[in-house]
């Protein structure tokens, strides 16, 4: 629930996008077939990884809303991937504070763009995994949190 709430809050505060949660069992992965994917790792009291995947059109919308420009503006295209990475970065930072408190110190890696793999695939090194599915403005977005065995 914390992850779900944090993701919605950040998308709203950062990009003025209001999201609805989607049922994981009903999620159609074809909706993010052309998705851009970004990931980052965190180490601290718990180690893990955050991933985010969103279709290119949603990334353009993210970038344009963050920058206050039109989605078809050339600048939105050049900022699309970076906007996705920064969205992930802010979600990760906010989630870790919400989940582990203000005394915990985490070191975060810089977010990197990657190739969208099978998000539903279970990581053998994972102690726990959580995926959240969202819909906003007709587009889908997936956030995945993996916590590794210590």
């Amino acid at each position, binding site marked *: 629930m914390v992850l779900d709430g944090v993701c919605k*809050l*950040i998308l709203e*505060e*950062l990009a003025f996008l209001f999201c609805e949660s989607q049922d994981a069992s009903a999620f159609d992965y074809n909706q993010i077939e052309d998705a851009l994917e970004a990931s980052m790792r965190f180490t601290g009291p718990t180690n893990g990884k955050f991933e985010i995947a969103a279709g290119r059109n949603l990334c353009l919308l993210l*970038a344009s809303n*963050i*920058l*206050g420009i039109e989605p078809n503006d050339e600048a939105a295209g050049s*900022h699309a991937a*970076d*906007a996705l*990475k*920064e969205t992930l*970065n*802010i979600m*990760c*930072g*906010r989630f*870790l*504070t*919400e989940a582990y408190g*203000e*005394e*915990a*110190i*985490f070191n*975060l*890696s*810089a977010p990197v763009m990657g190739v969208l793999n099978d998000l539903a695939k279970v990581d053998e090194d994972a102690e726990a995994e959580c995926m959240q599915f969202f819909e906003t403005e007709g587009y889908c977005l997936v956030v995945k949190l993996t916590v590794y065995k210590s």
Partner: protein
Amino acid sequence: MAYNILIVDDSQTMRAVLTKTICMAGVEIGSVFEAENGREALDILEKEWVDIVFADINMPVMNGVEMVKAMQKLGYMESTPVVVISTEGSKTRLDALRDMGVRGFLRKPVSPELFKSVVDGVLLGNAGEVGDSAANGPTTDASAGKSGGDAVTDNGSAAGSEADAQ
């Protein structure tokens, strides 16, 4: 007075947003310098006069904490106020940065209102009141040790309470 500003963030999007936010906050701008990491920021500080630095923490090559340490060592912290704008939520880490001389904290995403409050506090010693924003509140140096404050400044003027920002 026009201020020379240095924005240190590995995200080009956030640098662009911050530049826009600075303009919207009504800060009179001389020059805006941009750096992708702490190392680049130190190079700029060596060559240019900068009135205020806005820095992220989580960056490749040299992160914000390392940059502040280097600035402290090089004697920049006395003359050049640093405001950290980050996703960082650890009070422990923010307190350490405050002890190193960081003058203000803002947590991403930053609203122009909160930004203006902290910048006014740092540059003019005139922190304005800000609303309740425990999850997004800015703090400046004088809020150290308080709880529940959103915007406070180095000179002791406080606007808000919780030291929650970054």
